[in-house]
């Protein structure tokens, strides 16, 4: 009886196995990398109808975040400024700048400026801005160095894993509430003696923080976490209510 299968088919199962393995691995790796918010969202930088340069307004003019995002500390939703807010200054400053045309049109017609949304929280996720900024989570933690952005882009992935990272270890992001809107704040800026006088230090701290030269983010965060009794929800319905 002749050989039923040709000779070259001897290695075929092994080849299929290897190729299949490589393909599956590559696909998994590609999905892992390209199909997650880390890749799909971070860096998203749409063209806005009106190029609002955050760097000029914050760095050069020293405006606070809350001048425009005025309800961030009182409402769940952080608002965009209404045209009235823009025109408060731009009816006098740069009032003929062609880049501001959409704002002037909106002011004249009453139609809103159509800003392109960058950060989008899904409808099934409840997020409260006020609860975060009033407990020492800075704008910086989620939105990046907005004060240096000429054009705003998506800075952090805003994926669920990313949320949970912080909810599990809030000490990595907590800072004194008066520094929440200071996007240039560094843990090293804190005067340890003043900080300890105001907030104390963790119960099981091995050393006296006030005697230290500088405090780390973890030390500051741990102190504030205990001081304010911060227990971020880790159960599903904390956010998916």
């Amino acid at each position, binding site marked *: 009886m002749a050989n039923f299968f040709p000779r070259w088919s001897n290695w075929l199962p092994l080849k299929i196995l290897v190729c299949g393995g490589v393909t599956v691995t590559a696909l998994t790796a590609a999905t892992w990398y390209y199909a997650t918010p880390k890749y799909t969202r971070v860096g*998203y930088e749409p063209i806005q109808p009106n190029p609002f340069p955050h760097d000029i307004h914050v760095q050069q003019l020293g405006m606070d975040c809350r001048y425009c995002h005025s309800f961030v500390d009182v*409402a769940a939703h952080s608002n965009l400024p*209404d045209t009235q807010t823009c025109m408060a200054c731009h009816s006098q400053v740069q009032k003929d700048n062609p880049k501001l045309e959409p704002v002037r049109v909106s002011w004249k017609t*009453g139609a809103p400026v159509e800003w392109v*949304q960058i950060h989008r929280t899904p409808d099934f996720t409840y997020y409260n801005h006020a609860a975060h900024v009033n407990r020492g989570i800075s704008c910086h933690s989620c939105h990046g160095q907005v004060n240096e952005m000429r054009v705003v882009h998506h800075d952090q992935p805003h994926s669920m894993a990313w949320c949970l990272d912080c909810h599990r270890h809030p000490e990595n992001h907590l800072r004194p509430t008066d520094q929440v809107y200071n996007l240039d704040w560094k843990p090293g800026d804190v005067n340890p003696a003043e900080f300890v006088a105001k907030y104390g230090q963790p119960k099981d701290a091995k050393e006296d923080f006030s005697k230290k030269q500088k405090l780390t983010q973890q030390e500051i965060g741990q102190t504030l976490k205990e001081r304010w009794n911060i227990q971020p929800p880790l159960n599903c319905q904390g956010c998916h209510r």
Partner: protein
Amino acid sequence: MKRVFEHPPEAATGKRYWRSVGELSDTPEFRQWLEREFPAGAAEMDGSEVSRRSFLKLMGASMALAGLGMSSCRRPENHLLPFSKGVEWNIPGKALYYATAMPRRTGALPLVVTTIDGRPIKVDGNPLHPASGGATDAFAQASILDLYDPARSKRFVREGKTTTREEFEKYLAEIRPQLGADGGSGLAFLVEEALSPTRDRLRGQLEKMFPRMRWAQYEPLLSEAQNFATQISFGDNSRLVPRLERADVVVSLGSDFLDCGEGDIASSRAWASRRRVGSAKDSMNRLYVVENRYTLTGAMADHRLRIPASQIPLCACARRQDRGRDQRRWPRCCDRHTSGPAERHEVRRAMAHRMRQRPRSEVGRQPHSFGPQQPVVVQLMTYAMNAALKNVGTTVLIREFPRNARTNSILQLASEINAGRIKQLFIIGGDPVYNAPRGLAEDRATKQSLNWIDLQKKVPDVIRVGYYEDETSKAAKWHIPAAHYLESWGDALTSEGGYVAIQPMIMPLFGGVSEIELLNGILGGPKLEGPELIQETFRSTAPPGDFNAAWSQLLRDGFATHVPARDKPPTFNSNAAGGVAHNLWSAPQNPTPDSPEIVLVRSYSVDDGRYINNGWLQEMPDPITKLTWDNAAVMSPQLAKHHKIETGDLIDITVTETMLDAQKNR
């Protein structure tokens, strides 16, 4: 391979199973209905060119092709649209609450309205005000839907053509000097019933400016009877305010006072407060209801007597004879009905028994009747009973309500129009072409009876302010879109006389005009967007302390407490009332199966028809018949049997030349 699922064949013997009562009885009607509802082969789409199978194939292919461009792989671009001008006090995503009131024909209902992002979304009662106590009724709840009704009137219309507000203002400025020249003798208003101090004030100014103008008020569901009877019995400017929380016995003669449809939530609450027994000392009240149909009040009654509506005067008469002393002046009517069926007798005895149990001087019994549909005689007799039982001043208060004596009825206005004296007629609200009584006047030449539409056509200039472009608007020269009460400034009195503010939640969505704005426009006052007119009225009530503080307080609470509700001395003019009752009395005919009585009643869901376009109210089942999106002629089974009518039949009812299509429900 195609598999056909079928119900298992019925076993020839043994138990037979069925899926509905219809299937069990298996009548020819049911088979017919089954064939109509589920025609054989409907799922296959037999007979059409495209079969079901090929249709699905084509649809599937086009769906697949639509995905070729990978259009759904793009990140969707969303826009964020902030306000251009911020809304005051508004915080995005947070609710703002404003106190206001819903004007009603019998008095305003105090409300607290929730707004989000500057838009009203929910209506609740004002918990601070006793007329609401935090409660509302269905009409108030559903009124929010009317605000956003896409069918509401959105444009100014002149002779069928769209025009602008400026044009209308120009027109007003044109006619003002003409009107003033002859004291406004050609000017007339037809308005809805409303207790608005500012409207009254502006009307006073108009009457000063145009001393010969006419002002008529019309509500299809408020007959003049109650008002007339009250003025005769207790003097001018009076109105009855019940105090049901003080009443031990409540007798209702055809009055559905527990239905909150008239915005009278306080009455229901007061009555219910005496049904709650907290301790051994608490006593319950007792409710006797005499009515012709099942109402919410009848459903709550401890004793209910079912009699034809036309016989209620007899009952009133009998009750009065039980209690009244001055028999002579009052019509002696009716011992006849006491020998009626046993149940009537029983209820009557029960009533009489309860009344005798307590010493006469004790406070707290109240035979009362609010049924505005009841004739004057019933109203007068009820007042007489209340007076004889010394209820007036205890369980029934006589409250002073200013009422302009120059107010005409629609009938008087009709005769003026018929005489050709009216040149400019302002119809503010209402829908008289639809709901005015037939045959208001008689044409002099042809002797034909004229309906409102004929009369309206006789007036050269009819200016209509309406929430919808309806029949009345179509027959008018001008149509002006009306503002919703959530869009306009105003003030009002509650049914007990409390002063409440009406403040807008939002600018008029479609440029509507409120009644007050219009009157101000006719007066030639400056165009106002703010509350200036209301403030002026409020100032005249002399609020204590700083005016601005008092005004802010009014807007915050929604009502002012410094405006006193004055009660009149409880004196009943028995002579006048008895005389009128005597003259008006005529023994009612007993209805027979061949000439039954027809009672037209208010709908629990669409009121007098004004909420006909409100889906929420239409969707609300009638509390008694459970009908939705429908109405029915309700009749007794015996009458139906006599006329061989079955539930669900369509019948024509002819009432003196008026045809009503009514689906009848037994």
